[in-house]
């Protein structure tokens, strides 16, 4: 009976704290797709399409760095930089109400570094991409310090794949690969994120890595990734479907399958996209799965807008020859329902094309 009760309590606590991770080792959206409301089935492009819908993959070379910042960066960054200069200020920071308010709620910071190359080989495009991902996450309430959630993970992986046209209108693509990932906080453990009691001074110390120099040794969980996609173009209308499989999603400890379908229409001045993401997920509501995107291309400048699970998104990309700089404002939804647990984020992206 006790066991049954324990299983029930664990199940309840898992239900209550089951975050809907929007990116995990082997799966992330480049800035353009984040700016376009998270759409990717008919809007992914270039080498990055190998990650999302390989049918849209095109030949070319790319090195890219994405920095993902939470909206509280403007408040906490200057204060943390002061703390780094003068560690004695930790007490002052712990009583700084502006800082305390800014760190409350759900926040995440991340960096993605990736690059690769693709070329035309007979009638197909073939290529590969390698990526390094990392993210820090916390969910904190000052009224519940004993149930703070925090975590950090990192991973690296490689994918090879290609795309080809089966008919004049139908294009298909596939990419596959694998990598290693690991949870850095709580160091070396399998549950993510960790639940901390910040009122206990030893709690934080118990989840941090013993030796930061050995961080790569924590990335010891292998995973396999497969992406399959198809796109059908009829004049200016595109209809697509994409499937992502991850054999071991580090953050959930399970396999991940993401099936998404989308449609887009190119008005020349403006491209419109509508998509239903993660159709197989029975926890997410219809509104949560809905993404809308807008894109306008002026050559040297690209403008993006969209709606991701009801949240407005937007961004712009400066397209200087060989070099791109992009800025995006978007929201990550951690809940299976639209509009309940959004984290407002800003992304900066720098890329070199060759």
């Amino acid at each position, binding site marked *: 009976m006790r066991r049954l009760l324990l299983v029930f309590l664990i199940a309840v606590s898992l239900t209550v704290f089951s975050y809907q991770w929007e990116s995990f080792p082997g799966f992330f959206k480049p800035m353009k797709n984040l700016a376009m409301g998270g759409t990717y089935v008919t809007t992914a492009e270039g080498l990055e399409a190998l990650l999302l819908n390989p049918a849209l993959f095109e030949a070319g070379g790319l090195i890219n760095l994405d920095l993902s910042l939470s909206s509280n960066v403007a408040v906490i960054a200057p204060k943390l930089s002061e703390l780094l200069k003068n560690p004695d200020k930790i007490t002052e920071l712990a009583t700084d109400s502006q800082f305390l308010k800014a760190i409350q709620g759900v926040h995440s910071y991340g960096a993605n570094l990736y690059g690769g190359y693709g070329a035309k080989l007979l009638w197909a495009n073939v290529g590969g991409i390698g990526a390094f991902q990392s993210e820090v996450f916390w969910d904190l309430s*000052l009224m519940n310090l004993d149930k703070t959630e925090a975590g950090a993970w990192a991973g690296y992986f490689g994918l090879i794949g290609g795309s080809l046209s089966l008919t004049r209108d139908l294009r298909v693509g596939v990419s596959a690969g694998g990598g290693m990932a690991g949870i850095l906080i709580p160091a070396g453990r399998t549950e993510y994120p960790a639940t901390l009691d910040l009122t206990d001074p030893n709690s934080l110390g118990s989840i941090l890595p013993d030796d930061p120099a050995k961080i790569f040794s924590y990335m010891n969980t292998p995973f396999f990734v497969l992406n399959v996609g198809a796109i059908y173009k009829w004049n200016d209308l595109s209809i697509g479907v994409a499937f992502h499989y991850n054999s071991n999603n580090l953050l959930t400890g399970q396999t991940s399958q993401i099936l998404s379908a989308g449609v887009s229409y190119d008005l020349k001045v403006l491209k419109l996209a509508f998509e239903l993401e993660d159709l197989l997920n029975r926890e997410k509501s219809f*509104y949560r799965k809905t993404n809308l995107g807008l894109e306008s291309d002026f050559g040297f400048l690209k403008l993006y807008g969209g709606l991701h699970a009801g949240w407005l998104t937007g961004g712009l990309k400066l397209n200087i020859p060989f070099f791109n700089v992009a800025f995006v404002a978007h929201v990550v939804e951690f809940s299976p329902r639209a509009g309940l647990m959004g984290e407002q984020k800003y992304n900066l992206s720098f890329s070199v094309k060759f």
Partner: protein
Amino acid sequence: MRLRKKLLTLWPVILVLMLLSSCVFNLFSNFELRELLSTGTTEQKIESAQSALSGGNYDAAIALTASIINQELGLNLKVEDLEKLLDSTPTVYQLVQALQDATPTENLIEATKILVKAVAHKTKKDVASLSEGAHELLQEIGVLSTYSRTTFEGNSNFWEEFETSAGTIVALLSKFFDGRNSLKILVGGYRFIAVNTNEDRDFSASLCAFYDVCYMLNLMLDLNNDGNITDEQFVRGVVNDPDSIVDLSKETMSGLYNDPFACDEFLWACEVLEDMFSILNIESDVPIVDSTTLSQKQKMYDVFIIFFGSDGL
């Protein structure tokens, strides 16, 4: 030329989208909330309310937890009432009354915990805001130094500083006394948690006692019964001229005068305060008064006399 025209047309659209995305505005949340309130299970509502609290969607968290309490206690509240809980005085009082008499269940306790946190955040009465208020207050009386103020030097300046800063102190504190409905929920909710749980009992009891005193002052100072006190002549008078507090209290009518409902609520708050003092092991000496006596005291000064005695003023 066409490119220029395109740019001019689309720039504002994208810019507006980016600015709106910075405002963290969700177009679907109302549909989602309505669906959850109408058809969601208790587990779904608790999970969603917890998510909404973490995500800063306090309105959704309040509506969802109120819906759970409504469901568990059979209150028959409408979805529309739950969506605008803090604006509906009868619903707030019905809910708190039901909570007071309720047999505690796990769902009820969990929902109440989320509800009080969401209400405190929404009305800026949460721990961070309280600590900010306390920090500003301590700075104002010179206990904490800032760049803009001279450093506090010894105890000799304390009362001098206190007296000169009393107006600002009242102004800082009075914002916590605003919002009668939210204070009622905070008092009733934290009382329910403190009485029925062992986890963080002292913390819940302390918060309950603080909000309870705020609620009592709200009842006493709010003459126009709009739920707020910062608009009252008495408070503005004290802020502008702190020395006149006694004279003003002799001139100003009590919020409890000829208001049996406010008097009953005041006495309920006194009982809650006694309960919390007992949990916190604080010996209390809250004067015993009845509703009729309170409602007959015309001036605020007369009520102060009952509770603080003539020596305290």
